[in-house]
């Protein structure tokens, strides 16, 4: 097969991947077959995506067009390095999530499996189409399909009121975003979506500053809603915990990056030159979202809610990197822009790996214990040692510890920030290093949040929920895959940075970072800064080994297990004396002055005061908007009061108006 067919093959495969949707409808097939076949097909498809993505990262763009419903309206697709990279991200997350799903839905009933396997492959395929779309029509259809299929997936675990609300909120915000995108595309195609809808044609046509700014604002709204930018983030902490864990992993690790892809494709490739404030706006929005999200993530008590806020924080960091890159690009400092862009893309990749690892890990915890509420958990490291170890790698990566992958991208981002003095002049030069300090604060609080996640759920003693068994083999295999790559991407960051060079060349007029050796990161020059994670890892491992051997050799006597001392308070020590998740983050709560509310519950003669930390945007943003919308709707509803005479009057008036204007 020549490489030109590559794109077509993916498209055929994406149709084939929809097969499980048909498969579950066959009543004769036993449930075991449906489950394994259904998810394994997605696994195979995701493997193909990984291969194609890697291939496309270094290949010229491919185009394909498939006749659509109208003569002028074709399904157009493009596979270039940018979509290749995001295909790779999607493939990796999808691979692990689908493997995990085989174990996760093992005990589910027939009807539940049906509920999953109907929308699940559609979700994956829709994301592939979004990434490959080359015209507005294809993009919007796929985008909508992605939103709808994921809504159904949120409702898989049950249809209680909370889940329904989450799904509804998600759908609502997704549609506000989609509407904004629709208008943005209409502006980009000069009002003719059908004949001017091709992205390449859009990129070549000129836009007035007003249109460009409008498109920028609308896409920020549209993709920002998907990214969970402030204040459109409200769906994120609701939808992620409601969905089953493999779906949460896909939503967080793959769907949020799809929105990043959209920003890059439209606001960068189609609108290469923008106003000077675009970059700072991205940076500012990203930083405020990240700070807000990381604080709220540290305050959560539900494992997946914590991770959901943390995803929002990661998206904020990515937007910071993109904004910084834009600032550099505005001043034609191309190589610096390339560095910041690479940092952002690397962060996308890392987030996909460690965040989906943690989501899958919490899925296994849910499986084993039946709860994700951290105030019931504890001590899982003894009952689920392997899961605990794999999740530990994930939290190290998320906390940005060298030599894992999360650190490498953070390092690149800080290096890019430190190059701010190259900017010609102005406020930005002085403000950017301060923004870098903000980034450091975000990552430090993120470490706090994730230590809480691990320390409370996996360490210490079990509070009330006890894990019955270790996670199944499918679940462990999927997590091991992700954990392995968290380490590999961290130890060989040079390879990652090199393979991203075609994307920076595509978006930044052919500029790219200097060639890196596989084991090192030296983005500008070795004198400027260097980071050798391999040596780092080897050095730490060697020093630990030497210390261990020496201590063992000289003083190695057998250890004795004894009851804890605990300053002598150990006599009556129940597991409840450990920090509760709320207690753990109480100092943070107090320092940052977050308001909380308590609900008094009277259960069986005992008063309980569960602490809730309401999102301030509910009261300050969503509820007022909701009231305004209701008020408008009520005003409109006065037109409808059921009398046929007035309806006839409306038709009559409409007719007259039409006759006046369109004779």
């Amino acid at each position: 097969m020549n490489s030109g067919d590559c794109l077509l093959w993916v498209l055929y495969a994406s149709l084939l991947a929809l097969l499980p949707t048909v498969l579950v409808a066959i009543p004769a097939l036993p449930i075991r077959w449906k489950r394994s076949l259904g998810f394994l097909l997605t696994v195979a498809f995701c493997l193909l995506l990984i291969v194609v993505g890697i291939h496309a990262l270094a290949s010229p763009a491919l185009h394909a067009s498939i006749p659509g419903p109208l003569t002028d309206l074709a399904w157009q697709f493009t596979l270039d390095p940018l979509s290749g990279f995001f295909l790779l991200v999607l493939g990796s997350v999808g691979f692990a999530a689908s493997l995990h799903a085989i174990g996760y839905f093992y005990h589910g009933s027939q009807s539940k499996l049906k509920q999953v396997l109907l929308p699940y492959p559609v979700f994956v395929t829709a994301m592939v189409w979004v990434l490959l779309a080359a015209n507005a029509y294809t993009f919007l259809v796929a985008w909508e399909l992605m939103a709808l299929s994921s809504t159904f997936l949120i409702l898989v675990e049950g249809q209680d009121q909370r889940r329904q609300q989450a799904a509804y909120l998600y759908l609502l915000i997704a549609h506000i975003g989609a509407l904004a995108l629709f208008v943005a595309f209409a502006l980009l195609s000069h009002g003719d979506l059908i004949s001017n809808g091709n992205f390449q044609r859009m990129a070549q046509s000129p836009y007035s500053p007003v249109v460009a700014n409008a498109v920028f604002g609308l896409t920020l709204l549209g993709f920002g809603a998907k990214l969970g930018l402030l204040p459109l983030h409200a769906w994120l902490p609701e939808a992620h915990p409601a969905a089953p864990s493999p779906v949460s992993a896909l939503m967080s690790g793959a769907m949020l990056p799809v929105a990043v892809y959209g920003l890059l494709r439209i606001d960068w490739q189609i609108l290469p030159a923008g106003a000077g404030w675009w970059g700072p706006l991205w940076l500012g929005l990203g930083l405020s979202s990240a700070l807000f999200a990381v604080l709220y993530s540290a305050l959560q008590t539900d494992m997946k809610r914590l991770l959901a806020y943390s995803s929002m924080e990661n998206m904020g960091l990515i937007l910071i990197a993109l904004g910084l890159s834009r600032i550099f690009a505005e001043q034609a400092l191309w190589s610096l822009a390339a560095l910041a862009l690479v940092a952002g893309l690397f962060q996308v990749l890392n987030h996909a790996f460690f965040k989906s690892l943690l989501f899958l890990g919490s899925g296994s915890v849910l499986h084993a214990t039946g709860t994700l509420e951290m105030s019931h958990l504890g001590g899982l490291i003894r009952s689920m040692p392997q899961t605990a170890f794999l999740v530990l790698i994930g939290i190290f990566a998320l906390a940005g510890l060298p030599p894992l992958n999360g650190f490498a991208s953070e390092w690149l981002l800080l290096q890019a920030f430190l190059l701010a003095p190259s900017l010609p002049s102005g406020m930005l030069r002085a403000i950017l290093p301060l923004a870098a300090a903000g980034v450091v604060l975000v990552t430090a609080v993120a470490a706090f949040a994730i230590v809480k996640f691990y320390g409370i759920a996996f360490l210490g003693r079990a509070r009330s929920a006890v894990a019955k068994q270790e996670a199944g083999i499918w679940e462990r295999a999927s997590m091991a895959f992700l954990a392995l790559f968290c380490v590999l991407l961290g130890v060989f960051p040079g390879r990652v940075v090199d393979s991203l060079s075609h994307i920076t060349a595509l978006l930044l007029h052919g500029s790219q970072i200097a060639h890196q050796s596989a084991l090192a990161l030296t983005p500008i020059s070795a004198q400027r800064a260097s980071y050798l994670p391999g040596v780092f890892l080897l050095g730490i491992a060697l020093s630990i080994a030497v210390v261990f051997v020496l201590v063992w050799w000289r003083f190695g006597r057998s250890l004795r297990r004894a009851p804890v001392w605990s300053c002598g308070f150990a006599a009556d020590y129940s597991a409840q004396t450990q920090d509760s998740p709320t207690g753990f983050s109480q100092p943070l709560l107090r320092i940052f002055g977050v308001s909380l509310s308590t609900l008094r519950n009277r259960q069986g003669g005992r008063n309980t005061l569960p602490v809730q930390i309401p999102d301030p945007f509910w009261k300050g943003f969503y509820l007022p908007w909701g009231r305004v919308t209701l008020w408008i709707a009520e005003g409109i509803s006065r037109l409808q009061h059921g009398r046929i005479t007035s309806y006839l009057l409306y038709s009559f008036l409409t007719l007259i108006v039409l006759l006046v204007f369109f004779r």
Partner: protein
Amino acid sequence: MTSLIGWRDQCFQILFVVAAAPLLAGWLQTVRALLQNRRSAGILQPYRDLFRLFHKETLIPEQSSWLFQFSPYVMFGAKIMAVAIVPIIANGLPLASAADVIALVGLLAVARIFQVLAAMDTGTAFGSYGAHREMLISALAEPALLAALFTASLLARSTSLVQIVHLSQIQLFSIHPSMVFAAIAFGFVLLVENARIPVDNPATHLELTMIHEAMVLEYSGRHLALLEWAAQLKLFLYMTIGFALFLPWGIAAKPSLTSLVIAAGLVLVKLFFAVVVLALIETLLAKKRLFRVPEFAITGFLFGVIGLLSHFMLGS
């Protein structure tokens, strides 16, 4: 051949620092005792403590996991790696290019997170509150630390410690106002990160105030010895990172044995005075409430910010 000499210097630096770290702690205790009108236990007391702890039986809590036993080794190993990277007595060592200042901060974070996780692994109230206090305070101190380090890196146009030291050795007597502020910010961070007095009291076991001690409460025997030694190494490291950034005079640039010995002597002299200052601070200040500590850390951060801003306003 040069590389061999480089590795010799590397080993010399590591061994020197590991051996001298308890001496630093002993000197600190002695000066504090003198200032507080007490009789000191002698400058060599930390060595005797370590010796005693290494020979004691090692207990581990009943319900702890491998993380608890593994952490002391990680903390000690990470400190050794950090010692290998920082130009303490010689500049441009073979391992120095493995990490710049940002990665060095990351390396210290590795040690910290292992300690925090090990504390939570014991499943006691003290362990977990030591853990969350430590994470909180370090989260607040880290921006201040990075702001101080960024000021130095912006001046040297490099985040590599080798380059920073090299540059300030060339321009020996030029004083940058931004660096003064950065040094103050670094001093704040040093106190916070090493659990020194306005933030934490290393000599207390008073339950309500301890942070670092709460985390190591369940350790005993050789594990405790390693942790104590690692804490001493950390203080040594922070002080020498401060020297490398702000007072780099005397760090050996040429690889010869005599220059190494001279450099080692100079480091000891610098530490001698730095410890006196630290002991004075610890004697004159009272321990702050936990909820005053953020103000302390933020003051440090503001000094770092002033350093950054003055760098841009006054020009480098």
